[in-house]
């Protein structure tokens, strides 16, 4: 009992508790026994992966006390660029993927520079990037989806072959039991975990978010730490964009609208504090699964979307209230 209480006092314990609670609900409201089939869980993990990848970058930024509203738009931009490079121009993945990651990094570094160098509030700086990147995506794509159907001068459509990278990313491995995007998501979690807990710069992120002035006076390169956080968030957005393009088999300039809000919700439900200085990507992983299962349970029980949204909103609020009790 005591061990249990100690667990609940830790943020990880709370996030795990929330996840188990959702799982228990899933076992009770188990329409057509769907919850006991692995396929349900595999699909949940697949569906939450793109959001989860964005949430990894979001976590790095939140730890510094900031926020990144541009992740959804940068995802859309990167999906378009990836589709153009590999689908239309036929570039191999070894070239297309690094190029798209560079685009994401550039977008993130631009937000980071606005925040770190010009002291613009993160909310505003990344809001600007959110609008700008969406515009850039539409400009590059001419407002059209970048898809296999390529209109010919005579008006007819020619269908391009789907590059191997698309198929491989959208595939399932290990006997069809795990989606590749889920592995990519887990890879992003692992990378963020290494950065936050094993690298000096990870410690700089926490110190910056915990007390920026004390960190600066202790010789912490506060600006570079922020640049790193936003830059990595951009890179993760690019990864998510590539996955999204592979899943949709096209680069949609409208892809990722409002995804930033889901990414924030995942981080917050996991127990990361928007005040900065605490939290971690483990919490984000738990948050992603909580949100994923919530959606999945509501959908297998055919709950109407209206109720689904209201419930999700209530749960986000409850998660934040729970966090506050820990502080008090």
């Amino acid at each position, binding site marked *: 009992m005591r061990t249990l209480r100690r667990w609940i006092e830790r943020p990880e314990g709370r996030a795990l508790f929330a996840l188990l609670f959702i799982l228990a609900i899933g076992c009770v409201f188990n329409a057509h026994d769907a919850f006991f089939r692995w396929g349900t869980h595999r699909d949940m993990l697949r569906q939450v992966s793109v959001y989860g990848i964005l949430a990894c970058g979001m976590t790095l930024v939140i730890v510094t006390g900031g926020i990144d509203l541009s992740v959804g738009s940068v995802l859309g931009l990167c999906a378009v660029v990836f589709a153009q490079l590999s689908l239309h121009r036929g570039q191999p993945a070894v070239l297309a993927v690094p190029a798209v990651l560079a685009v994401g990094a550039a977008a993130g570094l631009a937000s980071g520079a606005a925040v770190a160098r010009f002291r613009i509030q993160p909310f505003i700086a990344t809001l600007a990037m959110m609008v700008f990147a969406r515009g850039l995506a539409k400009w590059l794509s001419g407002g059209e989806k970048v898809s296999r159907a390529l209109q010919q001068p005579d008006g007819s459509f020619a269908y391009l072959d789907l590059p191997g990278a698309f198929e491989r990313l959208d595939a399932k491995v290990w006997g069809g039991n795990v989606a590749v995007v889920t592995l990519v998501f887990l890879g992003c979690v692992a990378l963020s975990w290494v950065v936050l807990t094993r690298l000096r710069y990870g*410690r700089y992120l*926490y110190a910056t978010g*915990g*007390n920026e002035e004390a960190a600066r006076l202790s010789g912490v390169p506060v600006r570079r730490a922020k640049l790193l956080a936003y830059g990595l968030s951009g890179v993760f957005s690019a990864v998510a964009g590539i996955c999204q393009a592979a899943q949709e088999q096209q680069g949609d300039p409208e892809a990722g609208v409002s995804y930033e809000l889901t990414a924030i919700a995942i981080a917050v439900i996991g127990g990361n504090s928007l005040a900065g200085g605490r939290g971690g990507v483990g919490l984000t992983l738990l948050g992603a699964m909580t949100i994923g299962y919530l959606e999945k349970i509501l959908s297998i029980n055919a709950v109407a979307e209206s109720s689904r949204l209201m419930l999700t909103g209530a749960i986000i609020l409850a998660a934040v209230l729970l966090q506050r009790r820990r502080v008090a």
Partner: protein
Amino acid sequence: MPDKLLQLSNIGKRFGANRVLDSVSFDLFAGEVHVLAGENGAGKTTLIRILAGIYPEHEGTLELGGRIIRFRNPIEASRHGISVIHQELSLVDSMSVADNICLGREAARAGGLWLDRRAQLERVGALCARLDLRFSLEDLDRRAEQFPLSVKNRIEIAKALAGDARVIVMDEPTSALNHAEVERLFALIENLKGRGCGIIYITHKMEEIYRVADRITVLRDGRRVGTAAAAECPPPTLIRWMIGRDLAEQFAPPAGMPAAGPRAPRFVASHFTVPRPGPGRPPAVEDLSIAVGAGEIVGFAGLQGAGCSELFNGLFGAYGAVCGGRVEIDGEPVLPESPGASIRRGLAFLTGDRKGTGLVLGMSVERNVSLASLARMSPWGVLAPGLERSLAEHYVGALGIRLDSVGQETGALSGGNQQKVALAKWLATRPRVLLLEEPTRGVDVGAKHEIYRLLRSLAAEGLAILLISTELPELLGLCDRIVALHRGRVTGVFDRSAATPERVLAAAMGADSPEGN
């Protein structure tokens, strides 16, 4: 005999077990300036806060215009004509000057819903004309943030006087003003006196006291030492009142301290100047030269606004490369440019504000201790948790920090232990020069003495230590030399043998400075 505006009788206040005011009586007549003096922590601010209704719970009585009254909140106090001009400006930067002045007393119509801007501007214009504050109507409509500090100070005064205040409290009103602005403030005070207001004036500056005071009351350790007409209370008396004779014995240097012999200078600053941000402000520190030998502890005595804190921030590079003059460590010239660079050159800076600038309270003790030496703790940028832990445990042992584990959150420790964690962070950088700002602030007596012992042994190991303290006994007990600062300039340097509390305090108050007349 003029009207008695205010009579405080036997005011007492305690915070928990800590008594900060003990049976203090104080009165104020119409048309007089009554200076409230005392060292930091004497209880001046607490007394003012009781008067302003910020602390409704207190002992004793408050009589206003002959009626006993007890304020439940600041609004009641202000309705009764008590107005406080705060040290820290309390303006809303993003609002216009007129809106700031009328904040809380907006001219309104339609049952308070409709803001009557025109009436408000007229009212403020009339107020400013009456007080000779020289704001044009256009100025009144501009946002407060567009004005320099000195003008903001005038806005603050206008705001305080927008109601019909008769009792006006000015808490260090000149700390951010230049000479001409101070003169204008004094003219305003004369104007207010002529209108029958009573002014309670708090200051640390000797020349100001004798310039404005009609009467002087001195507080010490929460008690009133005395009240006298300014003419009957010359500076030596005032200083004796502030320090207290009986304290002199406590300043005796601790036994076993080696006499300060000639030592190689470890840290030298020459003609060091720290500018203040914003154009037209006098520098925070001007033309300061000091050499500190290895093993020497040099203290800086200065009252509020003297520039001690700015000096250390400037030397450490916290303001960036904006300071003038030369700095050398062990004969090697260094340019203060950034905290990171200063740390690499062997400088460490314990700031006076643990919570705000010293520690990351949400992080563990271990991580705070290693924060300024992370480069050493992480070869190739990869953290080595073993190194970090043993570093933290070493300093926890060496400084006697009491905690459950080094993984504990720093904010959960007591003030004294937090301070030791902050000190541990800086010692872990293996500094050659220590800059310490209020190293024992908010620390209990036991921990204080441990910190003193520690500083002495650090000096004995060859560190050069520069120390700011507002506690004279601390400076006199610890330091080999004491430098008095007043308005950013050195007004006295005292060897241990020559330093007496009276002389140091007089120099810090500018009594010996050429400008103090």
